[in-house]
């Protein structure tokens, strides 16, 4: 009992120390931002956007080429690995299983990173006010960037579908049609208990990482809006994502408990 009482002040004390450290880090960052604002970019994001705009099309093109090369590379590695899965001996199968997971993850990571980069570049460099004042040549560049952006997305979808089909070819018990809205549900239903366990552990890791990240992002977007006029939407979006994630998780926990009571 004494030990339990002794623990409480200690954990509050540690929390206070952590908060003070974060305040200190925030103060140091604020100091450098102040210097940057005094001697550097005064109009914040719009100046940076003007600087990057002429490079938008080349950047999206580079993202396109690099992502295709990487996704094709990992697709082929995955295909080679899966070719040997069925006939593999027990020890070799363990290694191949790991490689299958690794190459699949790299393929999907390249896919998602490229998508996010495309979104960031396009939204960072173009705006309605710029479009209203742009010349014909500049508008043609913008149109080309948009076309390339759309082509990128078709290809991302193609590689995702190809990945799913490869997995289903190597593991025929895996069900689900990517075009169906129940795809994730069907896929999960076709996983056995060990696969589900892996999904649960990874999902929880993602949940905790996202929770920490979103707290930081909420503060960061608020400060960036105050200093660089980035817009209130970013703050709202991060807040909505944070709320959705937390409420979904808590609702799921409650529902699972409720189901046990047959309520």
């Amino acid at each position, binding site marked *: 009992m004494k030990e339990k009482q002794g623990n409480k002040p200690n954990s509050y004390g540690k929390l206070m120390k952590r908060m003070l450290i974060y305040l200190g880090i925030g103060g140091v960052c604020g100091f450098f931002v102040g210097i940057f604002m005094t001697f550097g970019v005064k109009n914040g994001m719009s100046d940076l956007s003007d600087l990057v705009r002429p490079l938008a099309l080349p950047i999206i093109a580079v993202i396109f080429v690099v992502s295709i090369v990487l996704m094709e590379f990992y697709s082929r590695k995955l295909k080679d690995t899966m070719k040997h899965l069925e006939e593999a001996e027990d020890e070799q*199968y*363990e290694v191949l*299983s790991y490689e299958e997971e690794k190459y699949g993850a790299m393929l999907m990571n390249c896919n998602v990173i490229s998508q996010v980069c495309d979104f960031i570049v396009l939204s960072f460099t173009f705006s309605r006010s710029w479009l209203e004042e742009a010349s014909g040549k500049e508008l043609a560049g913008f149109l080309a960037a948009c076309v390339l952006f759309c082509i990128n997305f078709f290809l991302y979808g193609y590689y995702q579908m190809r990945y799913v089909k490869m997995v289903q070819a190597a*593991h025929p018990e895996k069900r689900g049609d990517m075009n169906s809205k129940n795809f994730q549900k069907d896929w999960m239903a076709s996983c*056995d*208990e*060990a*696969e589900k366990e892996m999904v649960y552990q990874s999902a929880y890791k993602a949940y905790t990482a996202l929770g920490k990240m979103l707290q930081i992002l909420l503060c960061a977007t608020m400060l960036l809006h105050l200093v660089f006029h980035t817009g209130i939407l970013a703050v709202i979006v991060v807040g909505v994502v944070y709320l959705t994630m937390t409420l979904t998780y808590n609702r799921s926990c409650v529902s699972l408990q409720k189901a046990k009571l047959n309520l």
Partner: protein
Amino acid sequence: MPLYNQLKEYRSKLGINQTDLGKMAGVSRQTISLIERGDYSPSVTLALKLAKICEVKVEDIFQYEEDES
């Protein structure tokens, strides 16, 4: 988790591979591989299924030993 098993030995006695055992138990080859390596502890249902396939008791395949520390 301190759960030890002799699933590989019993599977060898039956003369079947991991894929076949997986199909009989309704799980993937990867799950059988994980169980044999001791990297995954099966559910009670799966443990009972495996014992039934091997025609032995669950305790013959899986043993629980506490760490002395």
